[in-house]
């Protein structure tokens, strides 16, 4: 009951704000009968009606998880946000080790397994993305690499191995759209 009502109320305010924001849109030089405001306004009105229905006729509450579980979900969100911010400045490998390891620990609660999962996933996925799928991914950014002694040479070795492996395969892959 309460969950639906709260969500409905939030959506009602959001719809009102959306309708208000839609009125700020400016018309262009091209004239069309309904302009850029009508359709968003219509959506906002329909959403507001649905919100009223949710407030007036709510469904029974879902089973919300225990507070501890909600806390662990919130922790996962924080880990992911930190991961999002750190990918560019630190490169792929180091943030992935930490993020994957922490998520893994939340599921298994075994520290050793989590550490292994973090390291294994970071390196395995990096090899997969960088050398097998050929995505442009920075393993360790230049700023961070002096602090991590062995990784950069390892990446170079693995890269040259896959380059050698690739040279053995017959080249039946069609040219890419961007290749010249």
């Amino acid at each position, binding site marked *: 009951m309460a969950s639906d009502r709260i*969500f409905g109320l939030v*959506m009602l305010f959001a*719809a009102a704000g*959306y309708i208000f*924001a839609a009125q700020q*849109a*400016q018309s*262009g030089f*091209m004239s*069309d*009968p*309904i302009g*850029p405001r009508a*359709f*968003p306004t219509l959506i906002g009105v*329909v*959403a507001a009606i*649905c*919100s009223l*229905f*949710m407030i007036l*006729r709510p*469904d029974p509450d*879902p089973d919300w998880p225990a507070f501890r*579980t909600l806390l662990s*979900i919130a922790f*996962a*969100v924080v880990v*992911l*946000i930190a*991961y*999002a*911010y750190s*990918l*560019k400045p630190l490169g792929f490998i180091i943030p*992935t080790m930490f*993020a*994957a390891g922490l*998520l*893994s*620990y939340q*599921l*298994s609660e075994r520290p050793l*397994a*989590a550490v292994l*999962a*973090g390291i294994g*996933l970071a390196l395995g*996925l990096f090899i997969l*993305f960088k050398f097998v*799928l*050929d*995505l*442009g*991914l920075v393993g360790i950014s230049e700023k961070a690499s002096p602090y991590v002694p062995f990784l950069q040479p390892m990446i170079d070795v693995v890269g040259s191995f896959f380059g050698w492996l690739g040279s053995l395969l017959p080249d*039946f892959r*069609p040219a*890419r*759209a*961007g290749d010249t």
Partner: protein
Amino acid sequence: MDIISNLALGFSVALSPFTLGLAVIGCFLGTIIGALPGLGPSNGVAILIPITFTMGLDATSALVLMTAVYYGAMYGGRISSILLNIPGDEPALMTTLDGYPMAKQGRAGDALVLSGVASFVGALFATIGLILLAPFLARLAYQFGPAEYFALYLLAFCTLGGMASNNQAKAAMASCLGLAIAMIGVDDNSGLPRLTGGNLHLYDGIDFLVAIVGLFAVAEVFFFLEGHGRGSSIGVKLEKVRIPWADIVATKWTMLRASGVGFVAGVLPGAGASLGSFLAYMSEKSIAGEKGGFGTGVAKGVAAPEAGNNSAAGGALVPMLTLGVPGSGTTAVLLALLMTLNITPGPTLFTDRPEVVWGLIASLLIANVVLLLMNVPMVKIFVKILMVQPWILLPGVTMISFVGIYSLSGSYFDLLLMIGFGVLGYVLRKLDIPTVPVILGILLGGEMEGAIRNAMVLGNGDWTYLFSSPIAVGLWIAAIAGFVAPMFLRNILARPQAVED
């Protein structure tokens, strides 16, 4: 014979070693994605789209790979249904009803092979149906103007929302949420930004891939955390796998009937594979009657939902390719793939890019054979993969989603947005608000607004122009019926609950 020459064109595209290789890889990946609980077809395809895009595959190759994944996931969903009593994806729910009891009787191998064959029959039936029906529907779609398209989009929202949810207000709310998000960014018509709140990151609008991966894949992470990755141990034994010829022969009419039912359900916009397997199972149950023993582990109960599910998956491609209106969550994701590749689905696709359409259809036929070969003798390999622990699987899937989105734009803002969509998806699903209409809204919002604005230009601002043709009126009536009817049918169409241990 148009069809023969078209198919010849298709096979000439699909039989190149590279495309063939992609189809095989796609089938393998797809079966794994379908089999792993919590990583359904929509999730799997959504995570893979940004990666295929960044790999720079051309349109046909990317499409072949992803549809092979799509078909593969439909095959794979049955594996965990039968062995774990957990549907690998939503449409496989019906397979648990007879598949799991059959496995508990020590006939897990039989159930897996039988359902594999049923999947093959259903998918083959649907692909043939697609070949026959799609060009016809594409010709019909030439009659569609903006007013008809607007009504068609409305129909998709109404039926998808009406069927997928238990509460019409919540389904409509989800559609509005998606449409509202689609409006953010530069307005195509005037070239001026709107609803961005002055945030420069939002001027390009919100990338639908970010929303899809967030709502499907990241939200799944939170559900996994909530469930502590429970229920992933295999409770039944799988001995040597033999081919149960007697069961296959005994269920041949069941498979065909279920395929027919499933295909029709798949073609209807907004209905999709879940409804296909559901209707197939229920109709076979009523044909077999009380003595049929449905629900106790009979062969027909395994064959019917699997044939229906795979047939509906193929059928759902018909409206997606010919009209640009997806029939299910996964086809919505495939539509996103087409839009990423700059292919506009619709009638013109069949005349302007026949190599794409027929190459796709030919590779569906190939993928289907590959899948049968993979899923019958090699089923044990997939069962092994099923035993991957969640504490490895889940972080892996998360990191793959992040890398996919990150490599699209290289911006942390999209990643933050994706996490936001993940939280939103978790809350929505908790509150029983369907997320597929949100995706559909984000995908179709621009087109829908364009259609209504063009219609108003053509009709000189007269609202009655929207109802000016018989096709448009028919679509409006169908839309209203599709939205209202499920309220009354809900008691009749109540889904049977999964069997408890």
